[in-house]
């Protein structure tokens, strides 16, 4: 047993110099780590903004077609903005409802069943499947049959989003206290009604955040789209047929070009994509905060 020095006054610490120095060192290390983490983050944003700003602010950037002649300078990225919104939107419409239902099945209905364990295991495995593999999969089952289309790209992104949405919904539902379900049952409630009226609203902020993170990630995916949507320079509003384009694939195509005009468009597309994802993330925050605040003090 070590002797405890009883201080005569509160200015005389029992902790001693050693402990105070350790604490100071730990604090310094933590602050330094934060700074180091911030450096790449700030640099990425700064570089993309400084290089892409002039492209994005040029009139017609968000609406004009992509110049057909590679050498030409100037805007725009209209077809890619449209393509990204269409593809991500359709992917979301497919993956989020299905994923939330899957999460509900896992947490509320599968209770100890073998099917539940298998589904949960495969959702976990699918979360780790590289996106290019998902693209290849859709390429073989869809694109080879029906040709390039925005829908093919949406299918590939939906496959990527689905396991993420399933698992986040599953986890968020797990956080809803069992007592909340039981009090609904104690009022004569049945299972399905209780899930819709009590459990889902309680888990909604978390589920929405999870879904929006999945959407943000999918919006930036490039590899799965390369195989499935092809490239075009003009807007294609037809979801089901004809090649399409997206911001991510335009970044890929233009960034590896030798022409400064294309390189500038790549930076512009990168800034636009970051902007879109940023807007979605802010939106997600607002929605889940509003939902959470509605139900708490």
């Amino acid at each position, binding site marked *: 047993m070590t002797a405890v020095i009883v201080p005569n006054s509160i200015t005389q610490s029992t902790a001693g110099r050693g402990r105070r120095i350790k604490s100071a060192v730990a604090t310094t290390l933590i602050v330094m780590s934060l700074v180091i983490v911030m450096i790449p983050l700030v640099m990425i944003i700064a570089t993309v903004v400084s290089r892409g700003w002039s492209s994005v602010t040029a009139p017609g950037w968000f609406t004009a077609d992509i110049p057909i002649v590679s050498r030409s300078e100037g805007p725009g990225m209209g077809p890619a903005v449209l393509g990204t919104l269409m593809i991500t939107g359709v992917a979301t419409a497919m993956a989020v409802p299905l994923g939330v239902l899957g999460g509900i099945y896992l947490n509320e209905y599968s*209770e*100890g069943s073998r099917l539940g364990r298998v589904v949960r295991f495969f959702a976990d495995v699918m979360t780790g499947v590289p996106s290019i593999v998902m693209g290849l999969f859709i390429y073989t089952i869809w694109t080879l049959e029906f040709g390039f289309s925005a829908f093919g790209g949406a299918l590939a992104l939906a496959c990527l989003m689905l396991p993420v949405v399933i698992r986040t919904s599953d986890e968020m539902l797990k956080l809803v*206290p069992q*007592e*909340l*379900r*039981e*009090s*609904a*049952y*104690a*009022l*004569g*409630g*049945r299972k399905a*009604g209780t899930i819709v*009226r*009590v459990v889902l*609203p*309680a888990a909604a902020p978390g589920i929405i955040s999870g879904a929006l993170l999945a959407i943000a990630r999918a919006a930036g995916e490039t590899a799965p789209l390369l195989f499935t949507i092809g490239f075009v320079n003009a807007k294609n509003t037809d979801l089901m047929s004809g090649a399409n384009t997206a911001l991510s694939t335009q970044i890929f195509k233009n960034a590896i070009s030798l022409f400064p005009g294309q390189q500038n468009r790549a930076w512009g597309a990168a800034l636009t994509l970051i902007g879109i994802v940023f807007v979605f993330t802010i939106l997600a925050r607002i929605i889940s905060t509003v939902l959470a605040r*509605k*139900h*708490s*003090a």
Partner: protein
Amino acid sequence: MTLTSLNESLMTPTNLATVNDPVDDLAEEPAEMVFEVRDAAVDYGSHRAVDGVSLDIASREITAIIGPSGCGKSTFLRCLNRMNDFIVGAKVSGSINYYGEDVYGPKVDAAEVRRRIGMVFQRPNPFPKSIYDNVAYGPRINRFKGDLDDLVEEALTAAALWDEVKDKLKKSAFALSGGQQQRLCIARALAVSPDVILMDEPCSALDPIATSRIEDLMVSLKRQYTIVIVTHNMQQAARVSDRTAFFTTEVDDAGARTGRLVEFDLTNTIFTSPADSRTEGYITGRFG
């Protein structure tokens, strides 16, 4: 009365505040039995958690269930309204009759059982909704046809909460204090016009002042409802209940713990002249 049909009283607004003939003088044998439990047992998988419970629960009385931790008090309570249905591997055997009908009978609608036999839990657990919507939840899911505003007011009045919340019905239920939340949960249970209210340690998360308000409330609710309360607090059982059941834990050679009913009698008898030495030991141990 039959469990398989939805109670007619739900279709018309009922006055929850009405005082029906109060049963103040307690007879040795009460007039009507709500529950007749015979040799009830609960198994969790291969483990018998509660065994051989036989007791009668009388109408418009407060029946307290006391006993040490892990003696199966809550498990037994949850048998009465089939709340154990949701626990995987839980199995109830023996017979639990509610007005002569087997609660676990094949034709019984478990949701209807739970509507008639309401429950208040250990921790106040309002829904993430407004105060109004919390109370209105039960009537809404049971397709209540009358004036919902009136029903909400009656339920909140009966739960002694109306005056505190009448100006903030649209506010979130989480804005209330713990004691108010628990009274809201009681109001929520009353709003579906139950017959019995099961309370699973309803005051264990509350301070003494909130606790005494809930106890007062229980005594006033007794005029209209049958109440079964599980409590850790023996003084509480002595203060509010008419009859008391004492449960204890028996440990077999393999170390498995099984809860058993030791003694069931008028509260006064249990606390002054218990028949079983284990009851006496438990009561005097805590009081002495």
